[in-house]
């Protein structure tokens, strides 16, 4: 499933100050690609992920995912699109503390046709036998694996990851990245990963660098390395 952004602007108007978070962004991600969007804080990378994932609207421009023009969709259509086609992984895991692991994964499958069983999704992320545990009983890495399982259970066409290792130590972070690259290969899912960590970018097929709301570099990663080999910043 391909993604195409054409002349996308996102302007936040809070009180009397206007903030241009995205300025005339053009981007294309091909089906099955693993793209890392790299940039410092305030560069607009999370905003890019939010508008591409239909979590936020654009001020101007067009976003297409295959034939679907997201920018023409209303709230209901966006919800449906997200539910059926997109998976999200966040820095803070965002698990629901009152639900056990299996139920947290199931929240990702609600209302989706033909999802994985929650046990199958957990097996894919290496958490066999964790179904009945609760988030507070898990380590940070395990919680992030559950959130990845929750994103995968619906068999998404695109997986959006917002700083997925941001709250983890190096060892656990690399394990999560290994898992993401493995799943990307096995499931051929398009992955868009947002990070400020330049080391992480080395695992991607393509690296998109952002600064001050603009794409300043978009290049094929010719020195792709495995997660174990990256330099952790």
């Amino acid at each position, binding site marked *: 499933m391909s993604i195409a952004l054409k002349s996308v602007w996102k302007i936040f108007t809070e009180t009397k100050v206007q903030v241009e978070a995205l300025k005339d962004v053009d981007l294309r991600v091909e089906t099955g690609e693993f793209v890392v969007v790299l940039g410092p804080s305030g560069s607009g990378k999370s905003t890019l992920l939010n508008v591409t994932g239909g979590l936020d609207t654009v001020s101007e421009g067009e976003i297409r995912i295959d034939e679907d023009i997201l920018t023409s969709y209303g709230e209901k259509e966006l919800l*449906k699109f*997200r539910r059926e086609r997109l998976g999200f992984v966040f820095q803070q895991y965002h698990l629901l*503390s009152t639900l056990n692991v299996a139920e947290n994964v199931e929240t990702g499958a*609600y*209302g989706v046709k033909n999802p994985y069983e929650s046990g199958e999704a957990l097996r894919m992320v290496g958490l066999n036998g964790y179904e009945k545990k*609760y988030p507070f009983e898990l380590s940070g890495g395990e919680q992030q694996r559950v959130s990845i399982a929750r994103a995968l259970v619906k068999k998404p066409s695109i997986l959006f990851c917002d700083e997925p290792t941001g709250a983890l130590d190096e060892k656990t972070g690399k394990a999560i990245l290994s898992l993401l690259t493995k799943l990307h290969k096995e499931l051929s899912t398009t992955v868009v990963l947002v990070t400020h960590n330049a080391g992480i970018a080395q695992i991607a097929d393509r690296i998109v660098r952002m600064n001050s709301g603009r794409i300043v570099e978009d290049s094929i990663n010719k020195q792709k390395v495995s997660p174990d080999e990256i330099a952790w910043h």
Partner: protein
Amino acid sequence: MKSHGIRLYFLYVWRFMREKWLSFLLLGVLLFISGFIYTSIADSIGAFQEASEEYFEKTKQEDFVFEVSDALDESERLYALEECGLSKASLQALYRENRGCSMEIVENRRQQLLEQFPDVDLEARLAKDLTFAVEGDNYRMRILNDAKAINKSHIEEGETPQAGEIAITQNFARARDLEIGDSLRLREETFTISGFVLFPDYNLPVIDHVLLMDSTHQTLALMSDEDFADFPVAPHMYYAGLLQDVSAEDLEEAVGADTYVQFPFFERLVLTENNVRSGAIYAEIEGSQAFALMFSLFIAAIGLIIILMLMAKTVRASRRTFGVLRALGVPSRAMVGPFLTVFGLYGLVFLLAGYTVGHLAAPALQDLFRMFYLLPAGDVVFRLETFSVAILAPLALLLLITYFMLMRLFRLRPVELIHPKLSDFAVVKFKRMRNAFARFSFLFRLQVAFIARHLGKFTVYAVGIFAAVFAGLFSFAMMGVFDRTLPEYYESTSIVSKGYCEGICVDEENGEKAIEIPVKINDERGEAIGLDGGQSLHPLKDAAGNDLLGKLDEGLVISASFKDLTGLSRGDTVTLRVAERELDLEIVAVATPYAGSQVFIDRSTLAEWLFDDEEAYNVVYSDEPLSENAFASVIHTEDLLSHVESLHDVFNAFILVIIGGALFIGLIVVYLLTVMTVEDHYYPLALFKVLGYDNKDIHRILLGGYEKANVVLFLLTIPIAVLSFSFFRRWTAEMYEFLVPLQVLPTHVGVFAALFLLMTLLGTLSAKRRIKRLSLQEALTMYQE
């Protein structure tokens, strides 16, 4: 610098409250209602409680009553024959012929009782009942003898009546525009009103029927001793008693089976403190005060628990802020102080407002109480006790809760405040409960999970909804309670007037013959109604509509309410007693509608048993208005119904207030708790939106549990209410000897269900709007679980 910092904390608290202004406003309303209810009732009752206690002391209110039969026993009949030359069967009959002779028997009975029970004082209480007219409308009057030692009269205003004068109750006079100096025409005689009187023996509001206590349609009266003696109505009587060297319990024990054998005229001992016939109404008032306290505490408790929740929310929302401030070295008291001050002042304003309005409303409420209770009015004054309970107690609780919630938080280290750990409390506690729902649908499990997460809040919700539904159903069950007592009975008959003769009637041609007489049925008091099988004005039917008049030849027919009161039923054999006369009869049927403690019997059988004359009767039923002058007393159905109607109106207003109040409290509870539920779950809501759940799904997950709970609570409350009402019926039957025919009809449930649905829809409206408005990014950033 320091004061500048404190100002900022005040500002912080104020802004927090402003943000949640509607929740805080509703909370204020709850505090206001709590203060208002308690103060208005406590102050109004407190006012005449003090005046009443003094009045009871001064007038020597009875401690107990010995009820005695009007029928003369054998030795008394012999006495009347030998000493007075009269052959009479009853005291009243004897009184009409020879007053002195009957009073000798009354005194003789008193002496006999005093010999048996030397540790008490006794005085005969005589009462003459009659119907009289004021501007064309008929009312009832009970004239009492002027007691010398027990139950003395109390002139509230004006003078003690002299010859040709009468004192009546102030409530009646006010309602009928009568003033001191006005005249009343009673049985062809004219009396001038000399003043307003009260009596302390509280069988008084009850004339003819226990449920008719409206003192604006009937009056008590006092005449001079001579006028009372000469007034041409035979009195009924009992002995009022004061305990001297014996306790009520010991006296009760001393009155055994022997007493009934030794004194055939003796009917029963009534300890009046807890009986509607006597000082009991006073006990009932104290009960009302306790009820008011409970009710206002209940409302205050809901309010305080909501405060607890709002505080918990404040604390959670302020965790990081407090953490940073603590890290900067700001002491706890600098942050606690503003919370306590602002919350305290806020609570105080509403409690004070509730107290003030309640205090101002107390005189009006006292007047309303005095419509039913004949007690002296007192001044509504400031009472420290009321003020403390209405204001200081809830305020102290409010501040304590706030203080402890904040101090719990401030005991944590700054780093724990800034980076909270994942909460495991709810999960661990309810893991087992959650596992029990493992087989249910995912949606259902989610709903359970969200309820279990805030079980305390859900408990308040459940209690609030239960209370609202219960109060609502109670009000509906009370609807038409008076209709189901007297009007239904009278409307089922074709009787326009009942004419009661002095003793046995003689050749009355204007209606159908009947007998009405108080009897003892086993050990229960009741009224025997003698009917002729062929009469047409008083139908007798069972619940299926079958005519029971034909069954009177076979035995006794009892009323449905008597069946409920006594537990007697068809096939039981009962003994009817009047003085030493006894009659065994089998119960052959149960008659409807509700008709008090009545048993129906063939008139000729009853006449033969009572008067040794099967043609005898003492009351005439007529389908035309009977003349007041032709009978000792006449009851017109129309008057009775108009009396009931006025009570009906008061009750209907009362019922509407309860229904409205129940729905209002329910609405506040539903609103506050559903809105809080949404606010508490901003984070999961945002997450669900990110995952692609639509508003309907989210609403179902989050509020669906509460909606299901509403249905379950509503359905659960119905049997609980029905059981409670049945318990209430039994309790009033035991305490007050009458049945309150509460009735929960399917239509009541249906109408209330519709109102309840409307209330919950309104309550959740705001919650739904909030779900719709939710911003994903903001919620995900702000509310991390």
